[in-house]
């Protein structure tokens, strides 16, 4: 049985310029931030980020890693607008593929099902069709003949997700109230990397949650990163909630280059162990 444990740096070594990266979680919730930071401080460039977006998108925009963002929203939840994403959009430094949230799910689902598209009504009549001229409609081949949006597959080179627990082989467990779409991201991707709060022996997986919480199985994962506090400052319930004070500081850096430099030096351009040490010191 393969031991799939690796470091954040090992994950980044498997990513290439120009790749399409899907990131699990939702807004500022259960984001694989320790891997995101490792990408942010790497020389990688021209990435396409596919995300129910939060600070993952913002941080990668702020560090110049992003060519294009595929999103339904980008938000910090308690701070509705992600300031770094906002700055990048307003400066015009990134391309955008904006979708309805449900279309986005359908795109992942199509990719996971190895289909070219899935039909939906979502998008019809809205400007999603105007701003994305690549989107096409498809006519039902049945008697109804209804014209529907053909949501194209969002095929991913890499999926990055964060779970509460996992084993060394890649079985993953969410213990919070919402699994989000992490399983779809994995199934839509060629390479799948999962960080977890804690790696536990396989026989301990059911000690903290029911069988229903084992949403990710080892077929869906190529690498496991043990990353305590790995989702910080986003939520990772029930292990920890959002660090709202930290998030406020992060958000403030979008308007002040000096604040950003200081934040980058202390909280981005550091390895995971140093980050945790800085966090412990902060108290």
């Amino acid at each position, binding site marked *: 049985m393969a031991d799939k444990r690796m470091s954040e740096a090992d994950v980044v070594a498997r990513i290439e310029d120009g790749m399409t990266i899907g990131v699990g979680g939702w807004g500022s919730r259960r984001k694989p931030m320790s891997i995101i930071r490792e990408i942010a401080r790497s020389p990688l460039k021209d990435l396409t980020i596919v995300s*129910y977006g939060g600070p993952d998108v913002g941080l990668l925009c702020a560090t110049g890693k992003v060519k294009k963002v595929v999103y339904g929203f980008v938000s910090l939840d308690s701070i509705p607008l992600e300031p770094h994403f906002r700055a990048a959009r307003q*400066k015009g430094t990134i391309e955008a593929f904006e979708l309805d949230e449900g279309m986005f799910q359908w795109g992942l689902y199509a990719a996971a099902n190895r289909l070219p598209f899935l039909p939906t009504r979502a998008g019809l009549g*809205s*400007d999603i069709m105007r701003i994305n001229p690549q989107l096409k409609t498809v006519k039902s081949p049945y008697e109804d003949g209804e014209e529907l949006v053909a949501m194209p597959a969002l095929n991913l080179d890499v999926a990055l997700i964060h779970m509460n627990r996992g084993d060394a082989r890649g079985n993953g467990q969410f213990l919070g109230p919402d699994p989000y779409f992490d399983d779809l991201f994995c199934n839509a991707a060629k390479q799948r990397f999962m960080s977890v709060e804690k790696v536990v022996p396989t026989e301990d997986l059911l000690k903290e949650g029911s069988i229903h919480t084992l949403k990710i199985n080892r077929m869906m994962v190529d690498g496991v990163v043990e990353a305590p506090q790995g989702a910080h400052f986003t939520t990772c319930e029930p292990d920890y909630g959002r660090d709202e004070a930290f998030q406020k500081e992060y958000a403030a850096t979008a308007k002040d280059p000096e604040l950003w430099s200081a934040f980058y030096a202390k909280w981005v351009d550091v390895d995971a162990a140093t980050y945790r040490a800085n966090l412990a010191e902060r108290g």
Partner: protein
Amino acid sequence: MEATRSDICIAACADAFRGDGEIMASPMGTTPAAGARLAKSTFSQDLLLTDGVCRIVSGVPKMGAKLDEMTIEGWMPYRLVFDTLWTGRRHVMMGATQIDKYGNQNISCIGPWEQPKVQLLGARGAPGNTIYHTTSYWIAKHNSRVLCEKVDMVSGVGYDRAAALSPEQRRFHEIRCVITNLGVFDFATPDNRMRVRSLHPGVTIEEVRDNTGFDLVVGEDIPTSRVPSADELRMIREDIDPNGWAAKEVPA
């Protein structure tokens, strides 16, 4: 107990959910959240409400209730929200940064989408919500920047856009009403242009016209918005919103 402007707005939001039956009410924002709770406490007791995260709550917990103060009756993670909204068993009340006379709503950006002057949330679920089930809007500050001639991006689909679709494509589209701090508006006109349904007590039609960026359809007799009963006022103050959050959103 005297009804305040905020109470009138809460009752108007509640009335939007009247007759909805056993479906999920998704109120976005403070006053809609109070309104949906009032509806569920009184005339629409079969509504399903969530804690704003992913738990379906039994009864009517007060706004801001902690987890251990609520009885959970079901699970509604984001994936089931999409499943539910595609069945149509949902009525969402969203906000709008811009809304036009046909009910087209924008929450994406101000200025050209290609490089916006102001990036907002993104389209979120608005395109899917509006094409799959009933939608209403809540606007806490009625002014001509929000209620404007033309929106910069159509996130939520309005009636002129729906009319351009085929009858099959638009068959689930319904913008039931737009509730603002000044009045209640709907689209019950021959060409589905926004109409004044009622003005809140003390509001004049001139005030509404001065603060609206397009021509509203105005009938000869303009009704006054419903004033909540003494029972409803007690529920709002004591059970639903004891911290008075909605009253802060719509000052007296």
